[in-house]
Structures are given as C-alpha cells and as structure tokens.
C-alpha cells in the first residue's frame, strides 16, 4: 500500500500535514503525536519581525466550528530559524513554513531569509482575515495574487504554496492567477470571515469585530472549493477545512486534493493527525486501494 504523495517535487510519506497556526512549530503536540509519522509539519505564520497579534479574547466556539482572531502573533523569522526550525529538523518529516506579511516586501524578506535554510516548502498566507493590512487583501484580488506570487517566485529557493482565501466569489480565478504566476501548489481553504456578537454585553466578541471560521461547519464549502480549484488548475492542492477523520481526508482527496491539512481537529483531539493517517490507511485496506494517488480527484 502506497501512501506517498509528491507535491511540487517534494515527496511526503503520506498526505497529512498540520494546518498553519493550530500546531505551533510542533513542539507542544510532539507530546501526543510522533511527528515522524506526519507527511509534513506546517508551521504557524512567520513574519519578518515579531508580531504581537490581537487583543483577547481571540477565539470563540460556534456550532461545529470556531472563530479565531489570533492575528498572526509570532516571534518573527529570526527566532523561528534559531529555535523552532532546529527542533523540526530533528524529525523525519517535511517542513513547510507558513509565511505572512503586511506588504509584498515583508513577504519577500521572510522568503529570502529562509532561502538558505533546510525548509522543504513555503506556504504563503495571503488569506488571513484577522490582520488589518496584508493577509486577506492579497487573497481576494487576482491581480494581487498574481503579483505577489511572481515576486516570491523570483526569490524563493523552495517550492511556493499559495494559501487561498475562501472569501471570494470564484475560487477558480485566484487559483488560476496563482498558477499563472508560477505557484507550485495551492492550499485551501483558509478561514471564512465570521462574526459573533455577545448579546448580553451588546458587544462584538472580538476587538476587530470579525474572526475566521474553521472546523467541520465549513467542510462542505471547503470540499466544493477544492473540487473547483482542482478542476481549474494543474498544480497540486493541499485541502483543508473541517477535516476530523480519515474519511473526511478521503473526501478531500477524491475532490482533487493531493494532500490534506488538519487544523481545528487538533484542539478537539490532540492525536487527530495520526488518527487521520490511520483512518486513510483503513479506508485503503477496506476498498483495496493500492496507491493513494489513485484516489486523487477520482470523483469528477
């Protein structure tokens, strides 16, 4: 049984990674999950300088989902390469660094800084709804997607995965824009912009009013977008949005994802990533699937 997949020339031992921002740089979850078992670890967003993030509360629970407004707090690329990267490099898994910025220059700086490090892939977050500048603004406009992708491709030594926003009318347009500009792969979906009002305090739950919705609640939207994007582009797709089980992962793969990422699931079940890998293998055994690659995009 083969569970290996190849994304932009990088071979993962299986199609499961972590969704950026939910797994830190792996340290905390390494108590529960053997990181060697994962196809890849995707880190929390890394910016050129430390970011302090948003005021608390930063999360709210919703029906079968959650809103977050972390605001990309991170210690910056210097600390990342000194502290977090060495930790990850001790494991036999691929390392994907998620990159965030406020301006194109910010993104470029991080990508350039990472060029000489042993990082396998870069995931570019142009879809965070929780920061005022940068983030989602890039991800909702095809020209902006094309531009930033081009600039990053000029500088990056590693394959570039563009992480797309689901808060768009037509995901195929941003997907095609990224592909046209040279993106090596796509990640989707980031969170959907949502809002919660505390009716007892008559106030927004979050200081910046909105947060990003994730979890099983959004899965049908994510599967649809992965399917649409996979039908529109040739580059591989990392699918995410509400995956909790191996069966969920298979659904994304059948819709056209080459790999999948788990975010919110880690909070509900700290061993979710490993459990999903087991679930995928069980499905393959049950249905006599020899190669996971045979399932990618098999529903058309």
């Amino acid at each position, binding site marked *: 049984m083969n569970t290996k997949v190849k994304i932009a020339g990088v071979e993962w031992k299986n199609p499961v990674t972590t969704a950026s*921002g*939910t*797994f*830190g740089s792996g*340290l*905390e*979850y390494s*108590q*529960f999950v053997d990181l060697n078992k994962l196809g890849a670890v995707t880190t*929390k967003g890394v910016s050129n300088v*430390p*970011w*302090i*993030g948003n005021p*608390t*509360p*930063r*999360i*709210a*629970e919703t*029906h*079968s*989902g*959650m809103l*977050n407004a*972390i605001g990309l*707090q991170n*210690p*910056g690329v210097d*600390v990342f390469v000194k502290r977090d990267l060495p930790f990850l490099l001790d494991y036999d898994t691929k390392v994907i660094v998620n990159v965030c910025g406020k301006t194109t220059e910010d993104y470029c700086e991080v990508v350039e800084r990472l060029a000489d490090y042993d990082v396998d892939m870069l995931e570019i977050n142009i879809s965070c709804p929780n920061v005022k500048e940068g983030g989602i603004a890039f991800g909702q406009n095809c020209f902006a997607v094309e531009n930033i992708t081009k600039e990053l491709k000029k500088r990056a030594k590693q394959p570039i995965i563009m992480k797309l926003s689901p808060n768009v009318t037509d995901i195929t347009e941003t997907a095609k824009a990224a592909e046209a500009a040279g993106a090596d792969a796509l990640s989707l979906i980031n969170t959907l912009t949502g809002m919660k009002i505390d009716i007892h305090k008559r106030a927004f739950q979050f200081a910046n009013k909105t947060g990003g919705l994730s*979890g*099983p609640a959004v899965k049908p939207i994510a599967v649809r977008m992965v399917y649409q994007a996979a039908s529109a582009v040739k580059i591989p797709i990392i699918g995410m949005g509400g995956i909790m089980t191996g069966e969920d992962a298979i659904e994304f793969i059948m819709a056209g994802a080459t790999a999948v990422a788990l975010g*919110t699931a*880690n*909070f*509900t*079940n*700290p*061993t979710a990533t490993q459990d999903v890998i087991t679930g995928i293998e069980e499905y393959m055994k049950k249905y006599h699937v020899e190669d996971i690659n045979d399932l990618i995009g098999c529903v058309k």
Partner: protein
Amino acid sequence: MAETFKKAALITSITKLTEDIYSMWIKEEDIVANAKPGQFLSLYCKSENRLLPRPISICELDKDNGLLRLVYRVVGKGTEEFSKYKVSDRIEVMGPLGNGFHLEGKKAILIGGGIGIPPMLELAKQLFCEKQIVLGYRDETFLNEEFKPYGQVYLSTEDGSAGTKGNVIDAIKANNIEGDIIFACGPTPMLRGVKAFALENDIKAQISMEERMACGIGACLACVCKSKEVDHHTHVNNKRICKEGPVFYAEEVEL
C-alpha cells in the same frame, strides 16, 4: 517538560454543591501522579458540535487512590453537559496543564473568589506554612467548610449573608489579615484588587488567570495575557496562560 496525558477518565462521584456548582471526582492515575495545585485539565465534550475543550482547575488530589476532583459552575453548554454525567461514565481529559502554584512563604494569604475558590483547596492542603484563607462569594457559599482543617477561614459575601459584607479585600481589611505571600484565583476585577493590595502592602502575590483557550498546551496562542517583559517564548509582550500560566506573579502581568 512535565508529562501530560490525554485520557478517558472514569467518573467516580458527582454531586451538586449549589444550584449551579458541581463537584466531580475522576480516576486517572497518570494525571494525578503528575499534578500539582493550580494546574488545570482540559475537559472534552461528548457533543460533537462543541469542539473546544473546557479548562477546569484541579480542586483536590487524592494521590493514593489516583483520584482528582473538579468543581465547576454551569455557565454554558459544555459545563451543562458535564453536570449531566453519571458515576461510571467516562470523560476525556487532558492534563495536568499549566504551571501551578509555586509553594513558598511563611505566612500565606489564600484568596479565592467565586469559581476561583476550588483550586485553593489543594493548595491549602499542600502548602506547609501558616495559612489564612479568604473566600469571597456573591451569596450562597460552597466548599468553605472543607478549608477549615487547613487554616483560619474568612468569608466575604456581596449580600452580607456570611462573613464580611463586600469583597475579599474588604474581608482582609476587616480582619487585619497579614502575610508575606498571597495566592489568589478569581474573576479579573478581584485579581486587580488583589494586585493593588499586594503592591500597597508590599506582599508577593501569585495570581491564577483565565482566558479562552483552544489547544490548552501552548500551540495556538489563543490564551495570552499582556506581560510586562517580552516573553521568552512568544518574543512579544504576551504570555500564554495555558503554558507559562495560569499562575503568574502579579507584577509579571497586566490586568
């Protein structure tokens, strides 16, 4: 790193302390063996539409029998679900989490407010020094009898139905309570009052903080509080309550 476990713990007892406060004992030897006062557990709901674990403090430990006590107030859907569990049901828990109280001092003032009272009980049991225990309630009291073996107990109630009418600081002042270390857990306004009182009187204070959590183990950065110094982990002026906390020295954090 201290060891943390995710387990399906057995519920060995569940009782109602007041209209909306429940006491639950669970059996989970690994967690109990590693736990100390001021730490907490993440409790997972069975209902599939509630994805996030609920942080609940350790109220008591029975190390000999591998038992751990949780006391919680029903405030929403998750705690309501927990209140309906029965003896011999299992509950998924993760822990012990957070740093816990640092046992120190010669003459301690333990301050608990409302649902911040439970974690003070195991602290009172483990802290070997002179202890004065100040418990603040809105009206109905709970757990206060159980503190008696461990020190002098003072009460405050907002409605004046027991102890000093007012808050915990009013009770401290009314009873001229003094000490060289404060341990406190309770709502943020109370902690602010405690911090101010500690400053005024130049007493060291350990306070236990609260914030909404997702991962409970330091990975998601949901649960930060403002810290005075740039934190060594986050490299900004934020500390993670679930990891560097929930217990902080009052001067370390902004309230």
